[in-house]
């Protein structure tokens, strides 16, 4: 036990001797959390729209007026030339073009069919889809108002949706994003610190001195792991405080449960880092490997894009992604107040892998070269 404490002490001294470490470990991630949580919002605002009005009638003007006064759209120009709008799309000044045909007014007044066309810059397919959806809704509203004005009473509304948004009634995207970004930051810190640790001793040569001491392999790994676990938990606590007090993210579940899960999760991530550290020769290699895994873990975690939409084989890959389980758990416990029974699967998967990877790291660390 005393030997472990010595190693822990040595690690802490080494980390904090470097003056740049404190800001990198504690300020940079928190600033990122505070800033980046605002980025992820799929509500599309400020859609730049160009309207090609070939009709130029009172009716087309009132449609244009309806669009330009809505919150989501930003009217760039009204003109009668489509090519002008198209060249603006090429320059990224316009997202959507609405074309109002000739005789729009006459046709509608005489109950003839008439066709509006919407052309959207669909390189970002999601944004285009949402923009078109908004525009269609506006036009449908417009046409219903028109029918109502004509004196046809009883405009049938068909099926009405009564929407109830549970767990986040204001549909605040930050509630969703903050816990996720927090998970990423804690994971990256833990993985990078531990991944470069043992390999650094190898590269600088101090591993020799450690190998000749009577310390046991498991004591060595535990001694290396503990300081990072403590740093990770402090990091998590600061981040959680930012989430609760700055972003006002609700916390419905049990704080104890989150800490227990976070601890187990950190042991797993640190184990992965230790393992990377034992199989590589230079810090550069360790860094590339940690980076490779963290990019895959982040983009396939379901944090930024839904897992359900991935193809089957990709969904199966996410089963090996620890971030996926942790993101699920932190969202469920914080936002929905789920208890231990709901997260029992995730808990056992994470703790099982944590034990496995750490044993692997201990086994793979050789005191003799």
């Amino acid at each position: 036990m005393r030997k472990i404490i010595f190693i822990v002490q040595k690690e802490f001294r080494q980390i904090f001797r470097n003056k740049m470490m404190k800001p990198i470990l504690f300020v940079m991630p928190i600033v990122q959390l505070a800033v980046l949580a605002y980025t992820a919002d799929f509500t599309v605002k400020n859609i730049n729209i160009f309207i090609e009005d070939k009709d130029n009638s009172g009716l087309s003007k009132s449609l244009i007026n309806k669009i330009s006064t809505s919150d989501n759209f930003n009217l760039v120009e009204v003109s009668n030339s489509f090519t002008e709008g198209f060249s603006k799309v090429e320059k990224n000044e316009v997202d959507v073009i609405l074309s109002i045909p000739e005789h729009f007014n006459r046709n509608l007044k005489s109950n003839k069919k008439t066709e509006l066309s919407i052309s959207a810059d669909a390189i970002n397919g999601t944004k285009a889809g949402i923009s078109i959806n908004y525009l269609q809704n506006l036009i449908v509203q417009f046409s219903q108002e028109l029918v109502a004005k004509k004196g046809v009473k009883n405009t049938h509304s068909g099926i009405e949706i009564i929407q109830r948004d549970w767990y986040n009634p204001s549909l605040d995207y930050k509630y969703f994003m903050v816990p996720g970004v927090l998970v990423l930051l804690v994971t990256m810190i833990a993985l990078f610190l531990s991944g470069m640790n043992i390999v650094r001793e190898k590269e600088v040569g101090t591993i020799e001195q450690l190998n000749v001491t009577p310390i046991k392999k498991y004591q060595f790994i535990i001694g290396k792991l503990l300081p990072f676990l403590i740093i990770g938990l402090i990091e998590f606590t600061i981040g959680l405080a930012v989430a609760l007090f700055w972003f006002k993210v609700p916390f419905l579940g049990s704080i104890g449960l989150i800490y227990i899960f976070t601890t187990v999760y950190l042991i797993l991530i640190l184990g992965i880092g230790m393992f990377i550290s034992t199989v590589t020769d230079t810090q550069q290699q360790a860094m590339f490997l940690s980076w490779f895994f963290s990019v895959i873990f982040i983009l396939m975690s379901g944090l930024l894009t839904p897992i359900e939409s991935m193809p089957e084989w990709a969904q199966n890959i996410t089963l090996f992604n620890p971030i996926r389980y942790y993101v699920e758990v932190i969202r469920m416990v914080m936002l929905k107040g789920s208890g231990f029974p709901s997260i029992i699967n995730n808990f056992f998967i994470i703790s099982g892998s944590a034990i496995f990877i750490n044993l692997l790291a201990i086994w793979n660390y050789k005191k003799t070269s």
Partner: protein
Amino acid sequence: MKTFLAFVNKEFKHIFRDKRTLIILFGMPIVLVVLFGFAITTEINNAKIAVLDYSHDTYSQKLQHKIASSGYFDITDNLQSNSQIEGIFRKGKTKLVLVFPQDFGKDLVNNKHAKIQVITDASDPNTANILVSYLQAVFQKFSAEEGVTLQSNLDIKTRMMYNPENKSVYMFVPGVMTIILMLISAMMTSITIAREKELGTMEILLVSPLKPIVIILGKIIPYLVLSMINAITILMLGLFVFNMPMEGSYLLLFVEILLFVLASLILGLLISTVSNSQQTAMLLSLMGLMLPTILLSGFIFPISSMPDILQWISHIIPAKWFIIIIKNIMLKGTGFSAIAFETGIMVLISVVLTIMTVKKFKIRLE
């Protein structure tokens, strides 16, 4: 010139000596592009939903069938009472619960107006909103088909320009390429000077007659070559595996990639001059660059919807400009004039970074 070549040669030897790093360096981008090109999409398909049907009439059955066959939804559970809703959400898989009231069919036929309660799991507000708008479309079609609502005279025709099949690969190949180039270039260079400092070989370089600018250039050129090879690999994957169109000029694309890689390499150098060990260099380049590049570049989330402050911050992210440029050249086929502004900004960013690096580069040990 001769000393410069010797220096470049030394750097290449450093790189090629380490076979493992080389494998990672060239293998990783391929794995990442293939993986993400196929796996990541922001569309939502097969969302798991549950139904609580109090009416049990033909209309509710028909509508459920319609919802299930729309491709967006997967009805996984049939609930019996309100009290089960909480439990099914807490288990975490269900995105939405549809509640049909008792008189659903009757209301729809007699009054031409029926209500459906849609309870969403808004802990993911984005998915919740998109799913409700999908439902709305299904309902509209259903009520028109059943003759409940009047058909409107106003038809709307939509056209998806540049991407008629609405493929998300068009978003992700440029995005993944940008992230990989940015991070690999910045990381590789940032670690190289820090490494010389840590191992003590920096002192040897500093006492040599090499000028700082020669050391900097000599460090950049080998990595520039490697990054260009990576860029070409990724581009080929995009063109031949994912069938990305290439409307514009290859030469222009090549020049722009070169410019972007150069900016990233210089950024890496700047990081290495301010950090004192490989570990700090790595933490700065990885932690400092990874999330901002993914989130603030417009790769996944549209920048125009972000708060103003973040939009300003995004202006200094080279990745943002580069993504706009690649998309313009590859998908829209625009010439240089349409992207001159974006290119100018990238040049400006590179110049500023270079000045900062040269100023920060210390020729004495501390």
